[in-house]
Structure formats: structure tokens, C-alpha cells
């Protein structure tokens, strides 16, 4: 078939020299002429640049097997730095990795290992990473605005990630590298981030798993952070295809042992690495002191005590080493049912009511004696906690009449399919039915139900003065979700970044949420894989989206946090319980007694440069006005903003306890349990809820008080930044939130400057804020998906299909037409 090419491809052709076989050099962008499909396209300017590079590369000689065998200009900007770091810690690495091949020095395998090390240095790999398999001349499809092209490069699979090393990488301009993740590059997929792998055999797409008989010509990788990668293996050597495909499938899909997690090799290799302050002021809740501090902070220490019964996990492996229980609870009760049936304290409200959680006792129908025992035990427990000063307790059974994990799983797997898009055709197909598809996934409805449940519980605590006890089988899934949501809504401290991180530590990490199973990090059971934590983040996002000034962090923070779930160098999300973390860590270190230095995700400097970290912080967050003047001075150094306007209209906390009446208290004490039963009747509950919800929303919002989300139909939205960020069609140039944010930062800077002038004394404070606009100002038009879509920015252009080209005539005519083209650009 004869094809008529648009103007730019003509100019591209003109630049092509016959001596330049496009595929031979293994670098550069390939023009479409030699291929049956026309995806390999480039704008002429870019094409020229690439051509130049490929010529340069091609000059030393014919095909080389590997780029790293020779001195090579660093592919990535930071390679030099990585090299320097590598040199500094060289002894450490040698003792870990070098040992393995020490005996066979000089052998082929050893040489290969050395080569791999050199390659990894270039890839900017974390320490301890090993190359497992690789393939060269792989073509990565780049989809940009409905026209596709390809980049040649190597596909490597290490024990940490799958990485594509394109030859085009250095083309990034400065601006775009600023929000780069230091650990995971643009073309890196950690092994845990891989969701599904598909192969294309003769235009048919099939899921790949297990042993393969036939190897695909195209590999499609769906990631858990919703990226989609297409790799074309048609020009790769056959044995390399076999190696890389089976390697990738094996390492991402076969069940793994916990001790084989990359986490440990990384930690071992990074042993001598001078750790930056890992705590980052986040309360980790791994000491008794932390729990006591939290009790003090929430003024819960009157009725609750922190206990250390479980030190060394003697009582129960599910529970953290330290936790908080009601003061009168006898210690022997704690160990009775391995921690089941004990009310654990989560948080205390300002009025003294507490949020508790309890894992249900295991049900054993056949054993009458045991169930009798359980019953009396539970009665005892309830008696203890129903006694004054605890007043009444409302039990909220999350495992019976609330969401099931199964619901969440199915909803999310439907929902994510809306965003895992192989090509734009698929996108356009689904686009017409967008809302009904969205609704049929019922993910948004699940979010609504979670928020609603959290509001109900908030109402009990805030308006009815009732303690709430959350009950769930293991108290480690929906309990974590609901209790942390309630805290985010009720406790302004949890809306600061430190507070939020501490909350995640307290409720999720120490609360024993089984991240390992729920994220299916070990690929042991797909059934257990339920995105509960992601659901929580999505609920928080709704709150952030609806009340931006109330939060110290931005949606970008939530997005990168959700990405961090799959980066196996942080210990935070890679264990099922604190017990597992403490023990397995020790086990894997066969002889050495030194505990492993595991990184926590809260140390954001591991992933982001300080400049990029600025995007995690909400510039509009206004610190709570403090009355004490001395304190105010101190806080100004925290780089937090304070309003310069007098806060006249907002009283200290207008919403606090506006429901409470003095008589309420009395009546409830008198009627006790009977009322609590009555409250459980659903009608009244609904009315209470409605009244509470409506009356809160009809008052002006105090961002440092109680915060309720809107849960009406039109109010629950799609977290566009997380879910749409990799879809090039979804970006709006020069628009979206990014435009608002850059304007805001500019104004903030202005305010800062003026404030400084008014204060008439120099402040160190302006420095941090002033840099932010620079980051955004670099280009006049940011993508709406900033900071994630930058890399797809430049090629975007309006595309208009013409069915007329074919009928138009020959190329000469086109060329002539180009001559009469009126120049718009260089005026």
C-alpha cells in the first residue's frame, strides 16, 4: 500500500542518510519508513536531534553487544553522583555481593557480574540490586496524543525492578527532572508494582503466566500505579526474548519467600549508609513513650493506660509490643485469648469519649465449654468498660453490616480497568459511557459508604457523647480504615503531615494491617489482595479535595504515598505486623546480631529532592492560631503560614460540641444501657446522622475543628491525579489545578514579601516559599496533571484526522504546499 506522508515526515526523510540503518545503532528514534505500522514517528525537530545522536553512536563500529562494556557518557544526570556514592561504600558492597562470585574470579560469570555492576551504576540502582536478565534492542512504545512512536533501548530485570534503558533519556530538560523520584525512574517498574503481564501473539492479547511455550512479539505490562508499558520484542534476539520474558514472569508472578524481599538485600547493602534522621518527627509508636505521649496529647490518660504486656510479643504476635487499654482492665485478661476480645484504645475525643477497637473472639461452634468461657469473658470485659467513668459504649460491628473485603476487591478491580488503557482507541470507546462505567464499578459508592460510616461514628463521639467500639474479625482492615478516617475528621493534628504519618503508623502499621497480604507483595494469594489502604487514601483525598485549606499536605502527597506502597526499599508497607518485621528481619540475618537498618517511607528525602518535596506541602495550610505569643514566635520557623488577617469571623472552634447539652449527660447516665440499645435502631440513627450532618454543613467551616466531608452523589469524585496521570489524552495544557497552584504560589510569595516588609525585619522564612514558584514557573504552560505528566508534555499537539490525504495526490504537491506555508512562528 502506498502511503502519503504528512509534511514533517518528508523533512525527516530528507534528513535521513542512506548510511543510517535505523535499527543497527540501537539508539535513537526510528522513522516509520521501514515498518509496517506507522507508529514510529517523530516531529522533525526531534527526529533530527535523534538522528544526530544515532550517527554519533554508530560511528565507533558495528553492533556492540552491550553499551556498558566501553566507557560511555552517563545516561542519566545523576549517574556521576551515584558513582561517587558507590565508590564511597564500595567495601560494604563487595562484602555482600562480591563474596558470592569471589571463588570464580575471572570466570565468565564473574565478568558478567562486573558488567552488571557497571550497568547498575549507570541505571542509578539502589545498593544491593542484582541484574537478573536483560535484552537489547527492545522497542518501547511511547504514546503521545494518539500518535505512537518507539524508542530503542535495553530492557533489564533486576531483583528490584524492571527497567527500560532508553537511549533518549538524556533529552529531558532540567525542569522535568525536578520532580523525579530518586529511587524509581520514569521507565522503572518495581517488581511489586507489576499488576498484570500480557503478551501479544499475532495481534491477540493474552495474559502471560507460568511456563511459556511460545514467546510473544509484544509485552504489555500493567502496573499497580496504573502505568501501562508496551515493549516490542520483534527486533530482539530470540534467546534474549526467552530470557527476559520468562525472567520477568518468574520474578513478578511466582510466589516469593518473605526473606527474599529486596528490602533485606537493600538494607544489608546499605548497612553503613549514614542514615538521615529516619523518624522525621513522625511518631512511630514502637515505644511505650510514644503511646503515652499520644495519650497525653488526646487527654485520654485518665481512663486509659499504655501497657507493655506484649513486649517481645509474648502474648500475641498480632498485636504491637505496646498498646493502650482501659485502665481497670486486669492484665491477666489480656493474654487470655491471644489478644482477641480486648478493647484497644485508638483515640480520645476532646469530650473524653474514646474510639476503641476489638478483634472478635474466634468462633468455635462445636465447643460448648469454650464458647461459654468466651461469653463470660466478654461479659466481664463489657462490664469493665461499661462502668463509669466510661459511661456507655456503642458497638459497631464492621464485619457484619458494612462493606466486605470482597466488595472492595471487586469494585477496585473493575474501577482500575477504566484507567489501564492499552491505546487511545480503547479510551475513546469507553469515554461515551464514562459515568455509567464509573458507577457500575461502585468504587465511588464504596468511598461514600466509608465516609458515611465515619461520619456516623463521629456523630456518636461528638454529639451523643458515647464511646464507640469497633469490632472486626482481626481488627486490622476496616477497623483501621474507619478509625483513622474518624481521626482525620475530628483531630486537626491528623491533618498535618507529621500527624497523618503518625496516624498511619498508629492505626495501620502498629494496628497490624497485613500490608504484605493485602498488597500481595509475595504473590502468594490473589484472594487476599484487597486495596484497603488505597481506599483509605482515596477517602482522605475526598476530604483534601473538598477542604483544601484544612490539610497540611496536598493530593500529590497522597499520590506519592500510594506509589510508595510498591517500593521495596521501605519497610513500612512490607510486613503483616510489627512482630513479623522485628522477627523476620532478625531471622534473615543469619549470624550477625546487628539489626537491619530498614528505611521508613516517612523519610521523604530518600525519594525526593527538597525542591520536589515542596509539592507535597500545601502552601495554603494555615496554622492553627495560637493565643500564646511566645509560642507563635517559635512556630514561625516551621515554615508554616499564618494569616495576616484578623480571624474575626471564625471563633476558636464554633463547631465544638454545639450539640451537647448539659441534661444530655445526666439522662444518659441514668438510662445507661437501655439508651444505647435504642440508639442502635436504625431509624433513629439515620435521623441523628442527618441532623448532625446537615447542621454541621450549614455552619461556616472551622479548618481546625471538626471536618466532615460531603457525601452527596455529585460530591464524590475520581482522584484524577492518581488515576488519570498516565493517560496522555487526559492532560490539559496550561490548565487544571496546576495553573491555580502556580498562581497561588505566586500570590503566597507576594504575601510573604509584603509581610516581611511590614515586619521590617529579615526573615529566613521566605526562602523556602520563594523557590516554589520557580519550580512551576519554568514553563508558562504546565500540564494539568503536573507533576506527573511532565514527561509527556512536549510532543502534544492538536491532531486532526483527514480522510482526504489519500485522495490528495502525490508528495510533490505536498511539498509545494509546504512552501507556501505561511510562517506563524518566527515573528
Amino acid at each position: 500500500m502506498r502511503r502519503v506522508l504528512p509534511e514533517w515526515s518528508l523533512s525527516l526523510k530528507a534528513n535521513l542518510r542512506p548510511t543510517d540503518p535505523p535499527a543497527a545503532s540501537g539508539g535513537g528514534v526510528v522513522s516509520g519508513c521501514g515498518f509496517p505500522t506507522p507508529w514510529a514517528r517523530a516531529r522533525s525537530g526531534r527526529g533530527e536531534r535523534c538522528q544526530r545522536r544515532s550517527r554519533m553512536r554508530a560511528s565507533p563500529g558495528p553492533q556492540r553487544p552491550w553499551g556498558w562494556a566501553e566507557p560511555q557518557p552517563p545516561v542519566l544526570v545523576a549517574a556521576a553522583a551515584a558513582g561517587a556514592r558507590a565508590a564511597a561504600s564500595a567495601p560494604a558492597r563487595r562484602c555482600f555481593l562480591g563474596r558470592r562470585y569471589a571463588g570464580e574470579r575471572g570466570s565468565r560469570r564473574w565478568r558478567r557480574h562486573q558488567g552488571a555492576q557497571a550497568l547498575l551504576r549507570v541505571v542509578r540502582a539502589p545498593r544491593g540490586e542484582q541484574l537478573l536478565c536483560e535484552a537489547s534492542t527492545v522497542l518501547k512504545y511511547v504514546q503521545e496524543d494518539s500518535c505512537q512512536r518507539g524508542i530503542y533501548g535495553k530492557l533489564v530485570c533486576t531483583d528490584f525492578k524492571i527497567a527500560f534503558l532508553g537511549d533518549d533519556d538524556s533529552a529531558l530538560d532540567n525542569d522535568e527532572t525536578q520532580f523525579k523520584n530518586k529511587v524509581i525512574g520514569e521507565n522503572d517498574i518495581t517488581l511489586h508494582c507489576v499488576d498484570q503481564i500480557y503478551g501479544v501473539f499475532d495481534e491477540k492479547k493474552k495474559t502471560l503466566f507460568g511456563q511459556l511455550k511460545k514467546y510473544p512479539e509484544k509485552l504489555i505490562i500493567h502496573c499497580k500505579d496504573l502505568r501501562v508499558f508496551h515493549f516490542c520484542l520483534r527486533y530482539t534476539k530470540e534467546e534474549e526474548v526467552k530470557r527476559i520474558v520468562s525472567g520477568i514472569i518468574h520474578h513478578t508472578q511466582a510466589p516469593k519467600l518473605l526473606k527474599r524481599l529486596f528490602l533485606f538485600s537493600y538494607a544489608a547493602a546499605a548497612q553503613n549508609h549514614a542514615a538521615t534522621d529516619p523518624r522525621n518527627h513522625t511518631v512511630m509508636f514502637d515505644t511505650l513513650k510514644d503511646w503515652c505521649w499520644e495519650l497525653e496529647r488526646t487527654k485520654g490518660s485518665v481512663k486509659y493506660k499504655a501497657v507493655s504486656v506484649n513486649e517481645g510479643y509474648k502474648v500475641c504476635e498480632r498485636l504491637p509490643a505496646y498498646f493502650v487499654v482501659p485502665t481497670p482492665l486486669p492484665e491477666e485478661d489480656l493474654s487470655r485469648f491471644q489478644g482477641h476480645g480486648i478493647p484497644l484504645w485508638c483515640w480520645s475525643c476532646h469530650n473524653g469519649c474514646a474510639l476503641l477497637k476489638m478483634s472478635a473472639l474466634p468462633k468455635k461452634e462445636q465447643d460448648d465449654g469454650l464458647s461459654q468461657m468466651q461469653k463470660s469473658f466478654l461479659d466481664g470485659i463489657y462490664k469493665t468498660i461499661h462502668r463509669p467513668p466510661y459511661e456507655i459504649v456503642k458497638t459497631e460491628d464492621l464485619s457484619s453490616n458494612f462493606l466486605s473485603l470482597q466488595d472492595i476487591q471487586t469494585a477496585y478491580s473493575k474501577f482500575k480497568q477504566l484507567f489501564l488503557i492499552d491505546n487511545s482507541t480503547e479510551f475513546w470507546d469507553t469515554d461515551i459511557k464514562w459515568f455509567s462505567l464509573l458507577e457500575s464499578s461502585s468504587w465511588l459508592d464504596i468511598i461514600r459508604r466509608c465516609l458515611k460510616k465515619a461520619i456516623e461514628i463521629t456523630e456518636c463521639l461528638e454529639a451523643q457523647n458515647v464511646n464507640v467500639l469497633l469490632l472486626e474479625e482481626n481488627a486490622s482492615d476496616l477497623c483501621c480504615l474507619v478509625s483513622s478516617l474518624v481521626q482525620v475528621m475530628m483531630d486537626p493534628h491528623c491533618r498535618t503531615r507529621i500527624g497523618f504519618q503518625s496516624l498511619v503508623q498508629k492505626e495501620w502499621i502498629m494496628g497490624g494491617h497485613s500490608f504484605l497480604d493485602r498488597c500481595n507483595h509475595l504473590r502468594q494469594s490473589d484472594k487476599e489482595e484487597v486495596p484497603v489502604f488505597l481506599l483509605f487514601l482515596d477517602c482522605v483525598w475526598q476530604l483534601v479535595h473538598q477542604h483544601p485549606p484544612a490539610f497540611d499536605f496536598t493530593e500529590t502527597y497522597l499520590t506519592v504515598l500510594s506509589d510508595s506502597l510498591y517500593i521495596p526499599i521501605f519497610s513500612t508497607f512490607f510486613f503483616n505486623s510489627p512482630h513479623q518485621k522485628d522477627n523476620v528481619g532478625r531471622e534473615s540475618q543469619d549470624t550477625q546480631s546487628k539489626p537491619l537498618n530498614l528505611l521508613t517511607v516517612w523519610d521523604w528525602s530518600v525519594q525526593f529532592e527538597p525542591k520536589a518535596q515542596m509539592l507535597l506541602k500545601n502552601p495554603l495550610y494555615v496554622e492553627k492560631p495560637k493565643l500564646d505569643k511566645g509560642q507563635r514566635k517559635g512556630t514561625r520557623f516551621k515554615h508554616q503560614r499564618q494569616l495576616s488577617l484578623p480571624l474575626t469571623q471564625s471563633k476558636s472552634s464554633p463547631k465544638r460540641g454545639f450539640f451537647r447539652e448539659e441534661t444530655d449527660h445526666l439522662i444518659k447516665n441514668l438510662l445507661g444501657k437501655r439508651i444505647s440499645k435504642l440508639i442502635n435502631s436504625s431509624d433513629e440513627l439515620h435521623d441523628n446522622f442527618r441532623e448532625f450532618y446537615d447542621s454541621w454543613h450549614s455552619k461556616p467551616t472551622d479548618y481546625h475543628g471538626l471536618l466532615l466531608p460531603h457525601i452527596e452523589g455529585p460530591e464524590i469524585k475520581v482522584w484524577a491525579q492518581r488515576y488519570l496521570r498516565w493517560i496522555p489524552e487526559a492532560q490539559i495544557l496550561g490548565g487544571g489545578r496546576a495553573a491555580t497552584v502556580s498562581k497561588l504560589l505566586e500570590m503566597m510569595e507576594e504575601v510573604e514579601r509584603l509581610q516581611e516588609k511590614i515586619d521590617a525585619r529579615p526573615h529566613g522564612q521566605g526562602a523556602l516559599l520563594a523557590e516554589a514558584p520557580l519550580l512551576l514557573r519554568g514553563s508558562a504552560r504546565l500540564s494539568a496533571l503536573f507533576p506527573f505528566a511532565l514527561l509527556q508534555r512536549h510532543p502534544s499537539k492538536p491532531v486532526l484526522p483527514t480522510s482526504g490525504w489519500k485522495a490528495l495526490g502525490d508528495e510533490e504537491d505536498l511539498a509545494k504546499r509546504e512552501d507556501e506555508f505561511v510562517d506563524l512562528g518566527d515573528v
Partner: protein
Amino acid sequence: MWWGGRGQSFNIAPQKEEPEMGCVQRTGMLEPRSRQLDGHVASGCLPGEQILAWAPGVRKGLEPELPGTLICTNLRVTFQPCGWQRSQETPLSSEYDFALVNIGRLEAVSGLSRVQLLRPGSPLKFIPEEILIHGRDFRLLRVAFEAGGLEPQAFQVTMAIVQARAQNSQVQQYAGIPLSKAGQSSGSRKPPVPLLETSEDWEAERKKQGARGWRVSTVNERFDIATSLPRYFWVPKRTLDSEVRRAFGHFHQGRGPRLSWHHPGGSDLLRCGGFYTASDPNKEDIRAVESMLQAGHSDVVLVDTVDELPSLADVQLAHLRLRALCLPDSSAAEEKWLSALEGTRWLDYVRSCLRKASDISVLVTSRVRSVVLQERGDRDFNGLLSSLVQLLSVPEARTLLGFQSLVQREWVAAGHPFLTRLGVTGASEEAPVFLLFLDCVWQLLQQFPAEFEFSEFFLLALHDSARVPDTLTFLRDTPWERGKQGGQFNSYTQIYNPGYCQPPAGNSVNSQLSVWDWDLRYNSEQILQFHNPGYDPEHCPDSWLPRQQPSFMVPGPPSSVWLFSRGALTPLNQLCPWRDNPSLLAVSSRWLPRAAISSESLADQEWGLPSHWGACPLPPGLLLPGYLGPQIRLWRRCYLRGRPEVQKGLSAPTISGLQDELSHLQELLRKWTPRISPEDHSKKRDPNTILNPAEITVFFMGMAEGGPE
């Protein structure tokens, strides 16, 4: 501090005027009020307005609840809060006004029963405790009546509304707005929106656009070519008036090709009606038509406007469904909300308009050519598309003044039949195309928050004004009727002296007022909110405009003629349908299938932009909107106004809060200036620090006026 948009159109805290006074009034005047109306209530009436009935009540549903009086007159239903006086400054202030035609639904509530009135044969059988007035502009007024011997009044006022609404099928214009005020306001308007009723306006506008190859034609000065056309319009310089007259006769309703807008890059956007296929033009006529369509360009693209856009009936149906969905008691369950919204198809239509506009703006910017929008009537979607294209393509159209003159030119002057389309006449051809356009603009505003000088509130004000019969702007179907009413051509002798426009005598005073006299309806605080605090004028550098092309007019026939339809360009053999194949255009677009957008075919058919755009592919100033499902959103502040629970805390206070803070700080600094050294003072006056919206406007208008000729 923030109050959220409590279901009102503005983010202004409902202030209690003189709280003590109001209180006294309330306690002291409750008794007398029950017998006779306060003087000030009556004083709020317009000339010729008669109060039919009234009853004291409490405005409910929003916080705070306001006590006041519900009044039904022969023109409107209005609620007057207690102690509130219709200000002389803003005689038409319409926060609680409902023009009778605007009432879409009326419900009376007593206990648990709820009766819908306004239906034939639905008499009110009980005394209402509460009355709900649903406006067709999505507003809702809930008034609860006071008990205590006043029930008959509640009954009376309800019945009065029902009757007045029934009798008032034809729109009645508010007459006799105090002219003193009007004259004063028009004098104080800084840069007035050109109403395009004189040839000077057209000439000035043409110069502003830099359309050198065009001239103002006076051929329709007496409206004898078409009453729906404006008196003046732009035609190619070389075309004689006789040719214009001849060519226009071969178009539907005489709406021949006119320049709609000249792109600074050289392209021209034209609009015209459908070819009048029954006519049998001779050779010269065809040549005239062709040269007008070609407009001197070698490349002509005919755009089939209605293709892929909804029909008028579709738009109307979608709007009705949307209104039903947005009622407070809408039956859609929360978890079914999204599919119900999808079922209205309103957003779908918004999306297709945006998509088409974005395609056309690429056509206009990518090459120098003449792009002709062709719609049979040339009065609905042509205006919508041409305005959207201009909004997308040039920053000037995105300023407050620019947008107003855009609407005035492409909608009002171009003869969009507002009266019929908004359903005021009760005719069957109701279709709120203009509201669809406002929704599209709102989407753009959402997507590009820093690119527009006006805010959502301005769009809301415009949206609401379309239903208020106070000025002629939206009250007539054609420029001819508007001119007739305004008394512009009492004597035909004037036409030979176009420079002399005699101000009409005081008989019809509103004629001079247009919808752009915002200060009649909104107070200064509200008008301040018309400005988008996030507007960043730095985003539109003024130097990007390219030079005029030296060889502008290309003689000879066009070298390529295309038909743009189904999202693709197809070559046409000829421009006019009459030569060989009489109804080419009428047929062709219908059977062309939409090109399947697979990546392969797209890449195949890719329309290359000039290669030198290189790394920065978009010409500065051109916006490409997103029109994917997730990007098209519901204009909640407008459509969900009747559901206060959805309205709260709608937009983040952040930018306006910061704005307040900035002005506060600047004020402080200003006070301190004597103490600050002179350099500091000069720094303060740095143009960058001027963030006061009003100042920006002035600054900007100065730029626009002094812009390229």
C-alpha cells in the same frame, strides 16, 4: 472569612442590614404589616408594576433564615427580606426576584402533602404552610408562611402567583427603569461594550481585529436583505455591495457569508446559512458567492456545523432532564446519580461542542485559510462554535470586556433568536443553546483557571440575566425587532446619515440599556466577584501576534477546498452546490461515517502542524480543552442551586482569601509609606505587585486598546 456559596449566586455573606434596626422593625412592625404594606416595599416597584398580593413569610432552606415578605406583582414574584430596601443604586437587583415566565414549577406544602400547582385543573385545596418556587434558571425560593391569623394572605398570594403565571404567557418587559440612573451608569462605564448598532462600532471592531481585507457593508441598513442580520456586517473589501446583495439571496433566509472573526495569524472565520438550493443562480452569482466564501484565501474549509452536534430538540430535552435531575427532591438515588447525569446527555452535548470547537480552532490556527461555518439557519450553533473558537484561540476574548463584546457580536447582533430559544414566547422551538454555550465556557474556565479574566460568578450572572426581562439584549429574536423597539429608525431618512444617531426620546427608556449594564442589577461587591482572582495576564504575552501577511489576497480560484465533517477533512470539487451536483453539501455530510479513531488510522491521517512549531507545539494563546468523560463536569454552582446541601463550601476560598490578605497587607503598607524610604515606595508600585483586580482590568483594557492595529 468564608461563608461558602449558600445556594446563592455569590459568595457574599448574607449581611443583616442594621441588625438592631431590623430587630426593632420586626417586633414593632409585625402588627401593622399584617394590615398594610410598608411604604418601602411599594417603593421598590417598577413603574407600571402592580402588587397583586403579598404575605409575610420566612425564606427557608438556606442559612440564615430570613423573615420578609413574599410579593406577587403583575410582572414578577419577589421576596423582600425584612428591613431590606431595594437600593437606588441597583434598581433591578434580582437575588430573590422571579420573573413570571421564569417560574418553572410551583409547589405548595402543608404538613406532609405537597401539591404541584401551575397545572391546569389543580386548584389549591388547603392553606399552604410553605411554598416552593422553582425557577427555570435552577434557582429555588422556599418561603414558609407565618401562622397567626395570616393564613388567608398565604392562600391569596399563592393563588395570585398561579393566576398571574397563567395569564402571563407572553413576556412582559420591565419598563421604565429610572433613566437618571441609567444615564449615569452608562456615563460611568469605563470602556463600554460596543453594542454594534452603528457602523462606527463595526469599523472600530474590524480595526481591532486587524482584518485588513474586509470592510463594513451597509447593504442591510434597512434590514431589507434579512431582518435577522445585523444592520452592518463585514464583507471582503473587493466585493461590491451589489454582489453582496446578489450572493446573499442564494442563502437560507438571506444569511450569506460574513466575516465572523479574523485570526491574528491571517485566517478568517466566516459564518453563513445554508445554500438556498431551490434557487437557480447564474454564473456571476456563483462567482460572487465563491469569492465571498473564499475571502481571498487559497485554502477554504467548509465546516458542516450541525454535524455531530445535537439537534435543537436534543438540547431542549437534555436541558429539561437536567432540570428534573437537579430538583431537590429528584428521584435519583445517590449511588445512581452518575448514570442519571449521564442519562440527561447534557454533558455529552457540552463535550461534543467543545470537541468540535477545538477541532475548528486547530483548523484556523494551523494554516492561513478561510474557514466557513455553515448551518442552515446560521443563528444557533454557528454562534456557539464561532464564540468558542475565539475563546480558545485568542487571549483578548478571555477578558471581561472581550467576552462581553464577543457575546454581543456573535449572539446578540448576529441574531440568535433568544426569545424563542429560551422558551419565553412559548413557541415550540425552545432550545437553550445559549445556556449550552455558557456551560461550555464554564468548562473552559474550570480547565484553565488562570486564563480567563472573568469568573464563574460572571457566567452565573449572565445565565440568570437571560431570564430577566429587563433589557432588550435577550428579549428579542432579531436585531430588527430590537432596533424597532429601541426606536433607532423612526425615520428612514437617517440611513443616509449614519454618523448622526439621534438619541431616542424618553418614551422607551430601557432601549439604551443592555445586559452589560451590570450595575443596574448587581452591587459593586458582586461585580467585583466577576473578576477571576486567579487570572494571570502574564500567560498571554501581547507580542506573540504575528505580522499581517504581506500577500493577503490571493487572486484566482482556491487551490484546495475541503469539507470538514465527522472530524475529518474531505476534498470538495467545488464550493457551491449548484454547478453539477445541486445538493452536494446537504447529502455529503450525512453519509460520511465518522473516521474510526484507531491509533493507526490517526497516525496515518495526522494533520501536521507547521514543523517549526517544534518543541513548543501550541501557538501561544491557543487553548486545547479536554473533552474526555472525566474532564467534563457538572456546573454545580448553577444547576444545583436548588439543593443547598450540595452547594456548601463549593469552591475553595483560597485564592480570594489570599486576595483579601494581599489587599489588606497592601493597605497596611500604604498607611506606612511615609515611614518607608522612597525606594521601597517605588518598589511597591511595581506593576507586578498590583494584584487588585480592578487595577488589572484597567491595565488590561489599556493594553487591549493600544493593541495592534
